[in-house]
C-alpha cells in the first residue's frame, strides 16, 4: 500500500523544514527506519527515517525546498504499485483536517517548486596562491573581495596582507571578529538560527514575568577538587567547572520541583526528570545542549556527554536529541570575565541560571580580610510559577553543592 511521508516535526517550535538532501532517490528500495532524507531545520541538519518500507515512488518536493511541517514530501509504495498521488495526498490532507486543526497552512507545493536561492559559490574559481588562500581562511577574509596583483591577476600573499591592513575586504559576516567598513552600512539577512533565537527570546521576555536573584558562592573547594580530578584524568577527559555546575544544579533541583517545571496555559508540569540544558555559543547564535537525568549521572559521565554534544554542535552535526527536552537551563559566561549577568528564560521552562566568572575577591573570614575565590550566579525565574522566596531558597540550597563539592559525589 502506498504511503505518504510528511515533513516531520523535529522540535516543538519547528514550523517548517528545508529538504537539504534526498538520501534515497526515486525508485530506490527503502526499509522502515532507513534514512530517507536530510532535513535542515532552523537549528540543525537532521536525518529523517522512513516510517514505511517499500520503493521510493516519488519525491514530492525538490532538494532545497522549504515546506511547513506535515507537508507530504514523498510517496513510498510497493514495487510496481500504481499510485494515484493526488488522491493519496488529498486523503492524507483530509484525515489530517479531521483530527488536527493546526495544519491549515500545510499545502502541497507546486509541481516544480522553486529551488531555494543558492548562495553564490564563494571563492570558487578565484585564482589565488595557496598561501594567500590559507591566510584568507585563517583571517576570515573573502577572497572575492581581494584584488589580485600577481601574474594573470592571481591573488598572492601581499594582496591578502594589504587587504588585512586596510580592512578593505568584507570579512565573512558569520565570523565573530567581523568588522564593518567605516562609513558604510552593511546589510546582513538574518540566518534561520538568529530568527529562531530572536522570536523565542522576544516571546519569553514579553510574556514571561521574569524576576532575578543573584547569589555569590565560594568555589575554592570546587576548583581544588576539579584540579585534583583533572590531574588524574587524561587530557580529553578533563572535567570543566561547568560540568560541576550542571551536577550541582541538577541535585539542587530535586528539592525544588517548581523550578524544574514548565507552564502551558493554566497547567504546570513538574517534570519527573531533570534534564539540564547548557547554552553553547555557535557561529552567529547559540544552541542548548541537554544533559539528561544529570542528577543521576556521575560527574565524569556528565562531562563526557556534554563534551560530545558540544563537539557535534561545533561541527554542525548536532542530533535532535542533543538540543531538545531540557527542563532547566544554565548559561555560563564565566570564561569571558563576566561578573554577573541575567539570562532570559528558555520557554516553557520555569527558570534559567546565569553563571559569572570565578575570581579572586577580598573576603572577610572571622573578622579578617582574606582572599577568596567567588563566583556569582543569577537565577531568572517565571513569577507565574514561583516567587522570590522559593527561588532564593533554591539559590541557598545550591550553595551546599557548589561549596561542598563532596556532595556531588555522595
Amino acid at each position, binding site marked *: 500500500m502506498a504511503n505518504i511521508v510528511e515533513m516531520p516535526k523535529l522540535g516543538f517550535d519547528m514550523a517548517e523544514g528545508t529538504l537539504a538532501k534526498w538520501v534515497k532517490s526515486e525508485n530506490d528500495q527503502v526499509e522502515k527506519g532507513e534514512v530517507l532524507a536530510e532535513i535542515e531545520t532552523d537549528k540543525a541538519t537532521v536525518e529523517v527515517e522512513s516510517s514505511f518500507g517499500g520503493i521510493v515512488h516519488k519525491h514530492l518536493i525538490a532538494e532545497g525546498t522549504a515546506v511547513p511541517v506535515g507537508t507530504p514530501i514523498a510517496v513510498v509504495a510497493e514495487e510496481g504499485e500504481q499510485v494515484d498521488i493526488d488522491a493519496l495526498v488529498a486523503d492524507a490532507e483530509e484525515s489530517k483536517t479531521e483530527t488536527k486543526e493546526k495544519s491549515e497552512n500545510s499545502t502541497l507545493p507546486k509541481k516544480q517548486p522553486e529551488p531555494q536561492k543558492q548562495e553564490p559559490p564563494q571563492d570558487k574559481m578565484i585564482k589565488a*596562491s*595557496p*598561501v*594567500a*588562500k*590559507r591566510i584568507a581562511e585563517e583571517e576570515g577574509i573573502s577572497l572575492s573581495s581581494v584584488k589580485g596583483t*600577481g*601574474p594573470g591577476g592571481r591573488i*598572492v*600573499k601581499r594582496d591578502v596582507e594589504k587587504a588585512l591592513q586596510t580592512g578593505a575586504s568584507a570579512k565573512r559576516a558569520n565570523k565573530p571578529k567581523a568588522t564593518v567598513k567605516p562609513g558604510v552600512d552593511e546589510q546582513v539577512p538574518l540566518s534561520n538560527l538568529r530568527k529562531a533565537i530572536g522570536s523565542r527570546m522576544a516571546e519569553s521576555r514579553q510574556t514571561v514575568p521574569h524576576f532575578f536573584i543573584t547569589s555569590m558562592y565560594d568555589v575554592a573547594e570546587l576548583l581544588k577538587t576539579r584540579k585534583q580530578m583533572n590531574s588524574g584524568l587524561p587530557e580529553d577527559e578533563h572535567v570543566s567547572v561547568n560540568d560541576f555546575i550542571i551536577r550541582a544544579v541538577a541535585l539542587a533541583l530535586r528539592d525544588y520541583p517548581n523550578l524544574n517545571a514548565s507552564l502551558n496555559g493554566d497547567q504546570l508540569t513538574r517534570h519527573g526528570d531533570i534534564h539540564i540544558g547548557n547554552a553553547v555559543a555557535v557561529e552567529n547564535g547559540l544552541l542548548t545542549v541537554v544533559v539528561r537525568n544529570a542528577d543521576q549521572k556521575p560527574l565524569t559521565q556528565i562531562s563526557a556527554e556534554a563534551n560530545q554534544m558540544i563537539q557535534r554542535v561545533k561541527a554542525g552535526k548536532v542530533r535532535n536529541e542533543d538540543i531538545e527536552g531540557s527542563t532547566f537551563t544554565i548559561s555560563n559566561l564565566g570564561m569571558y570575565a563576566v561578573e554577573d549577568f541575567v539570562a532570559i528564560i528558555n520557554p516553557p521552562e520555569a527558570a534559567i541560571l546565569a553563571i559569572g566568572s570565578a575570581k579572586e575577591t577580598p573576603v572577610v573570614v572571622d573578622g579578617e580580610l582574606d582572599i577568596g575565590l567567588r563566583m556569582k550566579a543569577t537565577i531568572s525565574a517565571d513569577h507565574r510559577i514561583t516567587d522570590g522566596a522559593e527561588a532564593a531558597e533554591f539559590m541557598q540550597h545550591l550553595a551546599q553543592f557548589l561549596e561542598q563539592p563532596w556532595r556531588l559525589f555522595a
Partner: protein
Amino acid sequence: MAVITMREAISQALWEEMERDEKVFIQGEEVGVWGGTYAVTKGFLDHFGAERVRDTPIAEAAIVGSAIGAAMGGMRPVAELMTINFAFVAMDHIVNEAAKMHYMFGGQFKIPMVIRAPGGGGRQLAATHSQTPDAIFAHFPGLKVVAPGTPADAKGLLKEAIRIDDPVLFIENATVYQQKGEVPEDDFTIPIGKSKVQREGSDVTLVTYSKMVDYSMRAAATLAEEGIEVEVVDLRTLRPLDMEPIIASFKKTNRAVIAEEGWRSYGVGAEVASRIYEQAFDYLDAPIQRVAQKEVPLPYNARLEQLALPQVDDIVKAVREVMR
C-alpha cells in the same frame, strides 16, 4: 681564519687526513708525479710516497673497483676521477657495488671510500667533458653525494667524507678551484647531509649548491639593490637531501628559486621543488622557478657555451619572476 682557495682547501683536507690516518691513500690518473690534473695533490707523492699516492692507468673502472676492494679490506681510499664525465665508465662499480655492497651483504662489509670527481662546464672542453651529471648519482640510495660551494665547506665535508664508513661521491666544480674563502685553521669537519643558509633574506628562498652558490650570492647582491632580500640556502649534500632549512626559509618567504648548473629535466631543482610542494604547499605564493643549463649538449664555442650555461643574470631574472 685563513683565506685560501678551494683547491688549497681540498688539498689541505686530503693532506691532513693522510697525516691523521695511515689507512687513507689516494689513487687516480696523474695524482702522483704530475701532482693532480688540477694540482690538488702537488707535493703529495714526495711526502707520502708511491704506496699511498698511486698513479693508475687510464682505466676508471679499475680505479674505482680496486678502491672498493681496498675499502672492503679495511683501507680508506680516496679515488680520484680526472673528471666526473669519466665516472660513466665506472658506473657499475659506483652505483652497483660501492652503493650496494653494505646492503647486499647484510652489513658485513663497509665501503669507507671517497670518489673525488671534478665536473662542470665553462672551460671549452666540449660536450662529453663538460657535464654536470650530479643528479644522476644522487638518484641511488646507498651513495652519499656531496657537492660543496665554498672552500670551508669543501674542506670540512671532505674530511668528514674520508672519516665516515659510507661511500661518498665528492663532486668538485673545476671552474671554482681558484675561488677564495675563509677557512677555519683548526681541525674541523662538517656533517654530511646538512644544508646551510649562506645568506639570510626575507623575500625569496634561493636554493643552490656547488658553483651556483657563488652565482647565487652575486645575484642576491644585485637583487638587494632592488630591495629584494634573497635567502641563499646551500644544499652542500645532494644525498641525503636536507630540506629542513629550505622549508623553514620557504615558510618565511613563500617563494623559491632553485639554481643548478646541470640540466633542468629530472634535475636537482625538480627534486627540491617537488619536496617544497609536498611539504609546504600551504605556504606557496608563486610557482617555483628553476634555473638550469639549456637542454643541449654543451657547445665548444665559448660564447655558445656561456649562453647554454646558467648565468648570474638568469638567477636574477628568475627571482624577479617569482616576485611578480
